[in-house]
């Protein structure tokens, strides 16, 4: 069993305990996951208070819905991060607090992607995704990653990547479908 599997098993055990309203397990889960979750929300929102609110909302939801988690929803960590990510996107839309499209963000995004991948991409699923992302065209990959990590709208992508909206939309659409074909292989 790899370190990743052990980790996910532990998270799974904690989620099951949380579904039984075990508060100690909930706190342990928070200690294990909140750093990753806050990092993701902060990157997405570029706003401290919004990211904090999203993490709070996400954990309140996790407390109430832990019993609804099942294997089809992906690894426990992915499931929890997905909840937080949707919440962040909702809050960003509600507040119209979108990050400004600009070079600094693009540079930052590149940092994340070119970072120490060997260290952070330990799981098989993550390696598979990374491999498939590498097969996309640079434009497709950038538009997908900017949407994922930055919550960019089509307008913002069009501005950031200096390309017409129609082109950007088609990069995303075709990129995602190519990604799916690759991941299904």
């Amino acid at each position: 069993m790899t370190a990743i599997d052990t980790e996910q098993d532990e998270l799974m055990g904690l989620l099951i305990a949380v579904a039984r309203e075990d508060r100690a397990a909930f706190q342990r889960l928070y200690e294990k996951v909140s750093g990753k979750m806050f990092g993701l929300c902060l990157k997405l929102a570029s706003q401290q208070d919004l990211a904090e609110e999203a993490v709070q909302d996400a954990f309140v939801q996790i407390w109430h819905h832990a019993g609804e988690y099942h294997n089809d929803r992906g690894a426990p960590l992915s499931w929890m991060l997905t909840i937080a990510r949707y919440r962040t996107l909702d809050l960003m839309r509600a507040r119209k607090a979108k990050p400004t499209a600009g070079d600094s963000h693009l540079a930052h995004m590149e940092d994340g992607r070119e970072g120490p991948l060997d260290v952070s991409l330990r799981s098989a699923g993550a390696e598979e995704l990374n491999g498939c992302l590498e097969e996309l065209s640079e434009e497709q990959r950038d538009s997908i990653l900017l949407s994922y990590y930055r919550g960019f709208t089509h307008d913002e992508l069009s501005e950031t990547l200096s390309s017409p909206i129609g082109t950007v939309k088609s990069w995303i659409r075709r990129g995602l479908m190519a990604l799916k074909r690759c991941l299904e292989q």
Partner: protein
Amino acid sequence: MKKTPERVEALAAEYVLGSLRGRARRRFERWMMESVRVRQEVWFWEEKLGHLGARVEEETPPVSVWSGIERRLWPQNRKPVTATAANDGAGRWLWPGWSLVATAAALVLAVILLQQPEPRDDDRLSGAIVQADLTDPLWLVSESAFERQLKLRPVAATAAEQGKDYELWIVPADGQPVSLGVVPVGETYQITLDDETRELLSSSRTLAISLEPLGGSPTGTPTGPILHVAKLYEL
């Protein structure tokens, strides 16, 4: 729009990515509710793209985030905090006084378990706003998680004195009361609660009615006397 496999596939990916917005996003959420196939397609992407989330650098959130979660989930367990910021503001209404006001008004609280004609599988809160010298309750209160609605049905309630209105409040365990609007006397008052308000009500389970100028409190917090306080109970 028809749910063709191609369309579901393309929209699910954009839904999870976040690039599906506005009405298209809401329509797709309806599709998700209707079809397990659509949900499975979404789960596929949530799982795959979830790996992107896990590679972000960790950032430790401030301690206040955890205490906020605890406060929201278990407000009754909260340890007394000395000089909380929320109640410190100058000119704020001194809410903790409500219990004294209520006692002075010689108010008796009672619970009436409403008979639900069709018991449904959802959480319901129920209670009554009563007055000591009346046998009938002033209002019957029911809240349904399923319908997300709070209903106040007048039984023995009489109109407020001239030039005044009754205003309904949720009384949180700490912090300021939250207005649920002005209550008309002659008819059932029905409000749809948003997530945040429902959360607040289900944790505090306490409602209050204050006497306010016509149209309700001008400040957003109670300005007149608290006439009634009622606790709701889970059915």
